[in-house]
């Protein structure tokens, strides 16, 4: 009998387990948060907004950034690096062998649309969040303006893109189609214009990096300029630049000393309008390049195998990877300009003087980017120092908007003689570095933009905008009516309704 009781007891235990099994299958997701239970508070909305900003400064795991890709493609730089095949995605931009399978299109496309998605998610979710109304309006404005910024890059780089304004459900994810570029521009203008009123005029230091009205006006001006809407462009820049140099509603002023722009501690200075922000403390390592907040450009542009020989005279560069060496042509142009020293790291002359040695790597010219070359004195305290430089990058700064306004005014047919806004603002940029005034001509503006904005990611876009790329970049293999845009990444064409651009062998 005893044995029967044992058997029955065991059976009862077993049946108990069976009854409760449904409950046991509901396991605790441990600190993982379900989307359905997130976006409940103002604080959670804010983290959603931060995620949108995150894409502004996004760098790929393979060290790609918008800046180093288009600089490599320009006539100011080569891709450089160790060998002709090192950092191949930059080389492909440099020698115009880029194609739909290359890394650059895929990275830039993904960077933009990820930003768009995060903005769309926030815009959708924030509706249901109970929070302070003006804060909500500001978050919405920021998300829309950021979405416009992402779309502006996407439409400039790829031309034929889908325009996605709400998060797409899985059921419809392969049905998305491209729209006419004009429609994208229209949406960009709408988003930017609508955003203005809910944004603050100025931003306190603690929040610096977030959008204010000045930044949105500057972006809008650039959007108009790109569409050759000269009058509206000039009007937007006028709002940014103010009635006179230094008299901007938003407090923008040129820094008196050009070199101070490149002191990494000098973040969000009075000349900064839209800045990509990084820090030294996010502890980025080789395994998570791009997913944290260190700026990889510091190590990329440094001279390779750099060794000080006469320590007292040698700059304290960190030995880098020789990316984006400056072309001889640009060097010859800037050599006797006051901006030369803060712009160019002249390893050629340092080496000839016996002060330093470095490796003459791929496409070496001896001239490197000084503006944000990593230095021992600016290296991070934690993580891989190579990957955690904290220097910010200017997406738009005041000298840029001064020059863009001058250009827009000139193109719009406005008066450009001495005393006009165009003349004053063009020459304010020159005067800051001690140069004499020049007349407002397209040649002078183009030359000024080139010398002022070296290595700031503007040159290639300027050349395309001015339709000079086919001639200026012919030596690198630029083909007219093709290389003005990048091909749509091959993976986007697979199983979707997205079509390749005509310029790249497609039908769109």
């Amino acid at each position, binding site marked *: 009998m005893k044995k029967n009781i044992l*058997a029955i007891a065991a059976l009862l235990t*077993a049946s108990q387990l069976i009854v409760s099994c449904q409950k046991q299958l509901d396991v605790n997701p441990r600190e993982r948060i379900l989307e359905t239970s997130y976006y409940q508070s103002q604080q959670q909305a804010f983290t959603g907004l931060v995620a949108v900003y995150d894409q502004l400064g996004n760098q790929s795991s393979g060290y790609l950034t918008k800046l180093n890709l288009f600089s490599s493609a320009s006539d100011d730089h080569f891709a450089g690096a160790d060998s002709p095949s090192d950092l191949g995605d930059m080389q492909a931009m440099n020698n115009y062998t880029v194609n739909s*399978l290359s890394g650059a299109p895929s990275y830039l496309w993904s960077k933009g649309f990820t930003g768009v998605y995060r903005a769309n998610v926030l815009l959708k979710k924030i509706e249901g969040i109970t929070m302070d109304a003006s804060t909500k309006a500001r978050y919405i404005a920021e998300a829309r303006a950021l979405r416009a910024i992402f779309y502006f890059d996407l439409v400039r780089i790829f031309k034929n893109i889908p325009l996605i304004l709400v998060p797409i459900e899985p059921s419809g994810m392969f049905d998305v189609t491209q729209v006419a570029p004009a429609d994208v521009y229209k949406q960009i203008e709408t988003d930017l214009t609508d955003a203005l009123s809910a944004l603050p005029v100025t931003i306190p230091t603690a929040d610096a990096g977030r959008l204010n009205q000045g930044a949105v006006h500057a972006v809008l001006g650039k959007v108009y300029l790109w569409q050759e809407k000269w009058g509206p462009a000039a009007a937007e820049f006028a709002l940014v630049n103010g009635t006179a140099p230094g008299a901007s509603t938003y407090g923008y002023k040129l820094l008196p000393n050009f070199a101070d722009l490149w002191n990494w501690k000098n973040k969000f200075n009075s000349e900064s309008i839209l800045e990509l922000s990084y820090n030294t403390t996010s502890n980025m390592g080789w395994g998570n390049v791009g997913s944290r907040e260190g700026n990889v450009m510091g190590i990329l542009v440094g001279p390779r195998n750099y060794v000080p020989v006469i320590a007292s005279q040698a700059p304290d560069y960190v030995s880098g990877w020789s990316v984006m060496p400056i072309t001889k042509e640009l060097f010859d142009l800037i050599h006797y300009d006051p901006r030369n020293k803060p712009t160019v790291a002249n390893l050629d002359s340092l080496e000839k003087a016996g002060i330093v040695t470095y490796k003459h790597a791929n496409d070496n010219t001896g001239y490197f980017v000084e503006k944000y070359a990593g230095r021992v004195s600016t290296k991070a305290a934690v993580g891989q120092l190579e990957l955690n430089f904290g220097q910010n990058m200017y997406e738009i700064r005041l000298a840029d908007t001064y020059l863009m306004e001058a250009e827009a005014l000139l193109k719009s047919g406005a008066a450009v003689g001495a005393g006009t806004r165009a003349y004053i603002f063009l020459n304010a940029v020159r005067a800051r570095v001690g140069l004499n005034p020049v007349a407002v001509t397209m040649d002078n503006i183009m030359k000024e933009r080139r010398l002022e904005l070296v290595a700031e990611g503007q040159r290639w876009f300027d050349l395309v905008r001015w339709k000079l790329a086919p001639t200026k970049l012919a030596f690198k293999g630029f083909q007219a009516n093709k290389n003005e845009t990048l091909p749509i990444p091959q993976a986007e064409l697979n199983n979707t309704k997205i079509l390749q651009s005509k310029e790249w062998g497609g039908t769109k």
Partner: protein
Amino acid sequence: MALPLALLAQDIPVTGKVTEQNGAPLPGVTVKLDGTTKAASTDANGVFSIQAPVGGKLTISLIGMATQTVTVPAGGRINVSLAADSKDLTEVVVVGYGTQKKALVTGSISSVKAKDLESMPINRVEQALQGRTSGLTIASGNGQPGSASTVRVRGFTSFASSGNNDPLWVVDGVIVDNGGIGYLNQSDIESIEVLKDAASQAIYGARAANGVIIISTKKGKEGRLSINYNGFYGIQSPAKKLKLLNASEYAAIRNEAYSNSYNAATDGTFTLPYANPSSYGEGTDWQSVVFNDDARRQTHEFSVSGGTNKSTFYTSFGYIDQEGIVATPISNFNRANIRINSTFKPAKWISFGENLGYSHSVNSSLGNTNSEFGGPLSSAIHLDPMTPVIQTDPTAIGKSPYTIANIIRDPATGFPYGISGPVGQEMSNPLAYIQTRLGNYGWDHNIVGNAFLEIEPIQNLKFRSSLGTKLAFYGSESYTPLFWLSPSNTNTKANFYREMNMTLNYNWENTISYSKSFGKHHAYAIFGQGYYMDNNNRGLNVRFNNIIAQDFYQSNLNYKPATADIQGDGSDATLHVVNSLFTRVTYDYDEKYLFTGIIRRDGSSRFGTNNRFGYFPSASIGWVPTKEAFWKENNIVNFLKLRGSYGITGNDAIGDFSYVSLVNSGRNYTFGTTDVSTIGWSPAALSNPDLKWEETHQTDIGLDATLFNDFTLSASYFKKKTIGVLQTPPIPLYLGAAGGAAENVGDMQNTGIEFELGYRKKIGELNLGINANISTLKNKVTKLLPGREFIEDNAQSFQGMGNFTRTAIGRSFNEFYGYEVAGIFQSQAEINAYKGPGGTVLQPAAKPGDIKFANLDGNETINGSDRTYLGSPLPKYTYGITINLAYKNFDFVAFGNGVGGNMIFQGLRRLDVTYGNWQQSILDRWTPTNTSTDIPRVADKDLNGNYTKFSKNYLEKGDYFRLKTLQVGYNLPGDVIKKIGAQKVRVYLMSENLWTITKYTGYDPEIGGTVLGIDRGIYPQARSFMVGLNVGF
């Protein structure tokens, strides 16, 4: 009619001895007097005694041996020598939750028994299966000692990422994950059963679709105390070295590559990299620096077992110590095992016991075993032969890079290790690299076991409860010194890192079974319930930066750095819970008509409430015509069983919470000037609440036969169709979400034929045994989501060339996909003439000597749409053969295995290391004077994409046959060993991987991984020579 005889005849005491054919005594042999219930069994010395009449028939039987019947002679003395059973259909095989007589099995099950593995140099259990059973594709992950192999049972059933095609491993009823199976000691294994068809697998329901491998460890046997020792010791060396360019050849090729890309007119300067190539001589042979031709290996296994009719025990101790053949100081493995298996049977109706294994292993891994991104082997392939191993030239030492702080020096001489000028990236001097990792190791403690209780309240009604658990602790310790290996490989903060993790998984299973015979009807039923919890992992780690310690051996956490230099982190995994009910019914009539039916219901925490539970039924039938009356006994077909089965199994191997979207942090940005990140969150992926089980439907038809008395044959045909393959498909990037939703995306089919053939014959004093098997496999994707012709999940890529494998409808899992080569351009005229239909020159950047890519889409450009399918990395057939010979005291085993019909991606040279060394095959490159070749010209700037485009040139045939083990043993004669009281003393010589036939040009054609056959410089398997000793008391 024997009964009256037995009654009438006078019983006398009968004694005798039962031995194996080599004279070793056989304990535990059953001796039964026919027609009575009288029986006895042999003792430790093989001796039995029984009361029997003269002329009575004694049946002498032992599982695995051919049963003999002897007549009791006058005097009652009997000596019997039993032969191994050639018709091993009398064997018992382990099936899920029980055992079954092999003759009655209706499913497709392959077995490997302890006997087949005796003294084999096997460190991990997967190797025990490779080539020894049909239906399996097994490839070593790499040759790093202790590393796991990739195991596929009847092909691929799933697209999803790593691990999802791994079979379910069940050790004594405890489910152990594929990676965790390494704790098992080979000599503790009694048998390994591979359940291949759905009818066998369905009892494991939701996790059985990738096949089930059941391992039973040894139990003690009633009878004498048995003590065994087996050990071997040997040396290992690489079986093959690549033929790389020497310094002179390298310089010449480099000059040519440079001249082909630059010229003075357009580039301003033109200086050949090496002025006088022939002056450089042989240079450095980097392979000899990283390879060890004298790596040691030893294994010792010791076991004690025995028991009474109340209890049995088996206990063992094992130790393995193996050095790697690549960068030995940072590549080695050792493991200690203890096992205690006991059974107690205090009364006839109750038994309980435990099977408990503990292992502790310590390994140093060089970190990079099949990766193009650095590591000693990859560096050895790429480094230029100009750079010296150790730089002693004072002029060089005075200059960069040798003047850079933190370069690594040879500890013996103080001179710096050579630093390559031309070759950088992750490549570095392997000896310097070794210095930066010296002493670092990973460790683990595993306790895997179960405790069981079985009661039999009524005869044949059994209740069994089994509680299994896996408790593991694992972690690593490493010290990273300050170093400068190359510009992109530096460390500026000495740090010490420690990681500790814990896993506690368990399962509890309860079954009730009942068996009953009515005349010739035999029925059996089992009903059970199980609860399984795994992935219960948690971990902590800490890193001390700027630690004062000078090397690993000095490092510990008592060196406190500044608080800011202490970084800690931790992790918690999400539990995976499965809850199940299952039942199996078997029935046979006279062992002639056989039937088995199974149903299992599983619930998994990995699915939403919409589809949480799945049902997995199967049925199988068998017919043994040789038992029919019409089948006359003959010497051609001694036994024949036909069997067929159909069933459904499942797979839930997709990440946890794949059915919902989670919000992830880490989308941070920096505001203000305080230099810290502000935390951002956004959804990680899309959601799919309707996610459900992946189901595999499998039909299996086969036969088992004994032919001509000496041959056994087992043949199966299977068709396995997986419906609703689980996957997280890549989504278009324009969606902007970090990941897609997991979905049931497609259907995939595997079909194949398997043969296992055995032959056993005694010819005079020669015992001969041959076992051979061959399996074919055809894998085909039959359906994908609507509108999709292919997917690129798990696709393989190589640096900048993008994905080069693709899974498409009508083709097999991840076939190679790239450009077809139409030849080599011989002249500029040919390039200019190579036009699209519209007249556009297709490859304007090409130069003579470049690859002519086929314009498959017939348009005006060579682009992504010109690519095509170039072959499959999956072998079409796998085979193995074992030959056993025994002659007097000598024995001999040869075991080999092979695969065929697959392609391998030969990615030994990295695209972006332009100045890396080449294999000697480059000497046959195209030049204006060497035009009949398929190797394109060399050039620093690969504007035509000869190497940056994935073309057929990267693929090679992967067929190989490998003589895996060769062993010769000698048993010391009985009279010699008796003096020391031993039962058996055997010495043997053995070689592993002695010989491999292949045309593949890399180190090793056996390459495991999620997608097989991707060679990024795989750590090859060693060739070893060993001497061993086997002693039994």
